């Protein structure tokens, strides 16, 4: 296992351990199963989307529309299941919709050649607006299917379902980025797009793939969120995109493309979530939930820069 920790990851790992030790001294409740579950459950939706975002950032792109899409997904999944009474149809609708949005993001990026920061910012506006065109009112759970509730709220062997879903997806991405050619391709495209294209790689195809994967993962996270809220809520997941991006960057993925690891991303998210949790545990004013991650982000990237400078 240790072999998979690049140096940046060990810094983050160290930071996480220190945070945990500190918090457990302060409040022994930190190590209660309930608290750990709470941290992991709230991390899991972020992680699921962050896997996709790691790929995107590695290939030099970004998706700001994930938060808006996620709230749209909660509305769609609840509505379709309410109407049809079928989980399958609800999920199908979500994934078709997400596939479409991912494709549009990718096509606007590659065919219209719009910078993805701008393209997905625009998509964010479009989704935020159109979710209200779809339905002005929040969609409440009237189907009352027990399995739907189980997805977000259930436990298996005392482990929350969202965590299990995340753990189910995780190996796939570790595998994808470390052991298959796709991982290399994403790195190459992010690091030097001309070179990767001249090596016979269809950059556009893989960029679109990155957007589609991210959107589909948002679909999964959105379904979990809908179950957790028991509602399809417009305007939910506000600022989600910033949390995901901040966590991925904290995890050592460069905004300029070319380097990124899933383990780093996971550590980044855990650090941010443990801080959030700690602030509530320690009953510190919740405003610090903004300040502390900001400082940590700058510091972590600074240490990473220092480390890279030493290596060159």
């Amino acid at each position, binding site marked *: 296992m240790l072999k998979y920790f690049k140096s940046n990851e060990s810094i983050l790992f160290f930071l996480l351990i220190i945070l945990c030790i500190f918090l457990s001294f302060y409040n022994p409740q930190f190590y209660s199963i*309930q608290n750990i579950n709470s941290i992991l459950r709230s991390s899991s939706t972020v992680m699921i989307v962050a896997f996709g975002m790691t790929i995107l950032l590695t290939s030099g792109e970004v998706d700001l529309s994930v938060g808006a899409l996620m709230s749209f997904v909660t509305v769609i999944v609840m509505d379709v299941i309410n109407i049809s009474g079928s989980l399958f149809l609800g999920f199908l609708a979500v994934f078709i919709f997400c596939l479409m949005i991912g494709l549009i993001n990718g096509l606007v990026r590659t065919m219209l050649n719009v910078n993805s920061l701008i393209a997905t910012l625009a998509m964010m506006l479009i989704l935020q607006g159109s979710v209200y065109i779809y339905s002005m009112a929040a969609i409440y759970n009237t189907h009352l299917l027990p399995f739907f509730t189980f997805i977000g709220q259930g436990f298996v062997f005392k482990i929350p379902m969202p965590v299990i879903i995340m753990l189910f997806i995780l190996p796939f991405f570790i595998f994808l980025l470390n052991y298959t050619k796709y991982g290399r391709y994403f790195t190459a495209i992010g690091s030097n797009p001309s070179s990767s294209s001249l090596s016979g790689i269809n950059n556009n195809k893989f960029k679109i793939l990155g957007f589609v994967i991210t959107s589909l993962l948002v679909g999964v996270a959105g379904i979990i969120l809908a179950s957790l809220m028991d509602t399809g809520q417009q305007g939910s997941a506000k600022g989600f995109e910033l949390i995901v991006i901040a966590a991925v960057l904290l995890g050592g993925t460069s905004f300029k493309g070319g380097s990124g690891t899933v383990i780093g991303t996971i550590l980044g998210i855990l650090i941010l979530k443990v801080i959030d949790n700690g602030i509530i*545990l320690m009953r510190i004013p919740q405003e610090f939930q903004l300040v502390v991650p900001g400082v940590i982000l700058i510091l972590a990237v600074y240490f990473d820069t220092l480390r890279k400078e030493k290596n060159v």
Partner: protein
Amino acid sequence: MKIFSWLMTVIVASTLSFSSFANPKKIGYIVNYGTHEWYQNVIFGLQSRADELGIDFEVMDANLDINKQTAMAEDFMTKAVDVLIMTPVNEEGVVPILRKAKADGTPVVLEGNPAKGMTTLFAICDYDAGYKAGDAVGRILVSRGETEARVMDVGLPLLSATVLRSLGFMEAIAKHVDAVKVHELDGSGMIDSSVEVASAALAADSNINVIYGINDGSALGGLQAWRAAGLPENDLIVAGTGAEGLAFLNEMTKENTPYLVEAAMFPEGVGYTGMNLAVDLFNGVDVPEHKVTPTLALTVHNYANYYSFDKAGQTRQINFENVANIPTETKCTKYASDL
């Protein structure tokens, strides 16, 4: 056809001009967060009354952008509305708008919270609404033989209104039993953030018997966090605020739900009252500085008096008459300035 409609207009216009008061022709409303369910229902109430009075009613949505709200006020003045109704994104932020409107001669009606330089305001009493819910919860606790209320307050410190609600709620409970605020949280008024912060708080200490939410999303978020933590619901009481939309009705009408109390604020009624106030202001009628709109603690037993709820069709219909008959304070017990 054209001549006919023209004739009608003339007739209607002349009858109106004969009546002692002329209705304003055009009223504009700047809503702070128009896509929110609560404001959707406020707009519904405003529109309902405007339609009854034949007033051209337009809405602009500042969408929580305090800068945009100022621009929209200017735009409405350009459109020459007869009265401007505003729900400020933030009440301090409208002081210059009020000054400009005065110079422009446009009467302004505020919704929500008072601001320096305003003429008139229609709003619920946040403190009193919270108080009514707290009172109802206190009674239930007493009837259950409990002596202590251990409260998780899923609040929103961002707005003074929501802080007042929490305050009223706690002070009312304290009248019945010992009241301890175990957790004071910021759920951003959104169900998803509320689930998240409440989960963390419950992990730290789940010895709670009352969850209070400053709106429906916060209350439901708290309840969902409770459920996701797998805690027993038998002794829990959940109270929400607002009666913003269908959320509380859906939950409250479930079997064995802990969601027992809703501090109803009747947004449709708020809008209806507000339109009347705007018309009065336009006509130079002496308007109160604060027109209080009704609030009431709703439970599964009494909600049907005010809302006919169609669970299958997911619609609710307000009974304007019954809401208007709710005994209402002339003045709130506490205001933002008392904080």
